[in-house]
């Protein structure tokens, strides 16, 4: 984990309020792996004060580049969206424990399930799984047609299904509906998205080997402030905890309370 001033190579609006940001720097990219996140300082001053945790969508070691995808929802991310190529951003990272590709054997099928702004970290994961010979299937859920992104890029790597809640694109319904209706089978499930989606996955496939990437408001991002803790499953004392920033953000299904 280091702090590096990274140069913005490009910034593109790829869906409603969703931006793809490519950052370049000599060191940080070589420490990063799939499912980890970056903590970005979006303003030089003190407003907003804290960094923004944003997951890594792609790691390009050869070009020293990292791609992140985020939604410009609040003040900080809206400020980030105004930044242009050539500007610098202070980046703390890489942070957290990401997805382990070793959990799926070559030749086996991994299903990657993403919801909304939870989709991005699955892209680097998919690239890595394909590299080691895992067959990947993607199920991507969005609110509506204007929110869909990266469908083509995922399609290049494997079978890809898109669902929208309002039915304006792809299949109407949730990611779980798609998995059931299409009768998709798999050995391992990897997911990132809103908590209700993660809960539905846990309930639908309790016996499957699976890994869920969680999201929570964070302070420091390095495990010191105790802002992003969650309870551990099957702990009657309710005092055991995991920190999403450093123990996670990826947890095995059944490891923590969602």
């Amino acid at each position, binding site marked *: 984990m280091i702090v590096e001033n990274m140069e913005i190579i490009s910034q593109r609006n790829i869906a409603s309020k969703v931006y793809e940001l490519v950052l370049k720097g000599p060191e940080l990219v070589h420490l990063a792996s799939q499912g980890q996140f970056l903590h970005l300082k979006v303003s030089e001053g003190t407003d907003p*004060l804290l960094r923004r945790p944003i997951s890594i969508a792609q790691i390009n070691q050869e070009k020293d580049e990292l791609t992140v995808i985020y939604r410009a929802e609040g003040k900080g991310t809206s400020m980030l969206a105004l930044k242009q190529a050539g500007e610098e951003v202070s980046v703390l990272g890489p942070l957290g424990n990401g997805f382990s590709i070793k959990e799926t054997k070559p030749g086996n099928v991994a299903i990657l399930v993403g919801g909304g702004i939870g989709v991005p970290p699955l892209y680097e994961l998919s690239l890595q799984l394909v590299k080691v010979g895992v067959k990947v299937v993607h199920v991507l859920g969005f609110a509506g047609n204007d929110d869909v992104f990266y469908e083509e890029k995922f399609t290049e790597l494997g079978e890809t299904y898109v669902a929208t809640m309002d039915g304006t694109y792809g299949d109407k319904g949730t990611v779980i509906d798609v998995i059931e209706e299409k009768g998709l089978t798999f050995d391992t499930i990897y997911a990132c998205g809103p908590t209700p989606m993660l809960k539905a996955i846990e309930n639908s496939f309790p016996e499957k080997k699976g890994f869920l990437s969680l999201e929570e408001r964070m302070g420091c991002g390095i*495990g010191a*402030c105790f802002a992003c803790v969650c309870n551990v499953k099957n702990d009657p004392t309710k005092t055991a905890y995991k920190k999403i920033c450093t123990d996670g953000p990826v947890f095995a299904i059944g490891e923590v309370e969602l």
Partner: protein
Amino acid sequence: MNRLNIELPGLSMKNPVMPASGCFGFGQEYAKLYDLSRLGAIAIKATTVETRFGNPTPRVAETSSGMLNAIGLQNPGLEKVIANELVWLEKYDVPIIANVAGSKVEDYILVAEQISKAKNVHALELNISCPNVKEGGMAFGTNPEVASELTKLVKQVSDVPVYVKLSPNVTDIVEMAIACEEAGADGLSMINTLLGMRIDIKKRQPILANGFGGLSGPAVKPVAIRMIHQVSQAVSIPIIGMGGISTAEDVIEFFLAGASAVAVGTANFVDPFVCPNIIDDLPRVLDELKVDHISELIGGSWK
């Protein structure tokens, strides 16, 4: 010549900069980034008798130039802090200030008595100002008689000097400070966070699961400076100043207000290297101000 060393009751510090309690855990995370022995001291996370999970999430919310937190004193409990965290910290050449919290008088006494015996604990910080727990915490720090009584009892059992951490959420901070000094406090640390709240306009409810939380960061700095300026003129015990410090210039401002050392809190979350960076930058600011030793600046705005 060391231009930064400071001698306070119980604390022989290489420099006046310590991370503030609650913003540094028990040091393990930051130890991966730099040598903790570079710090003047470390104020470890509040310790209670029993293990505490703390409040539900969300526990943090941002505000202009600051943040609200309602962590709720999450910590492993007295036994584990002594057996694990403090033992782990022994390898560093840095005095530890143990922040002591509780919901009952007996809790404070038990924690203070035992934790003050740990060999690297050089001082206690009596936390009578945490706004995020339902019982105790700030309730002990908003009434001078209650604060005075607790300070006396803790002083009786502690093996090391006791600094009382004051809450800014009072009408008269000077009255509180004097009550603690008269009760035997060896020093004060101030200020803890200011009570605040933010509301999510879409959900029409507070962002923090706890409802309200403690405001920290640069937004509270002028409040801290004003209170230290007032209190330092009314008491003769030293003050560890805190509240929005993020630069060497901020440290100087706190000294001029009347602090004899400082704690850096929220800034650690923005830049995890902020404490060593400030320490390294202080000589430059002293040069600019043509000051030989930082202690010359204590109370410089009113002396």
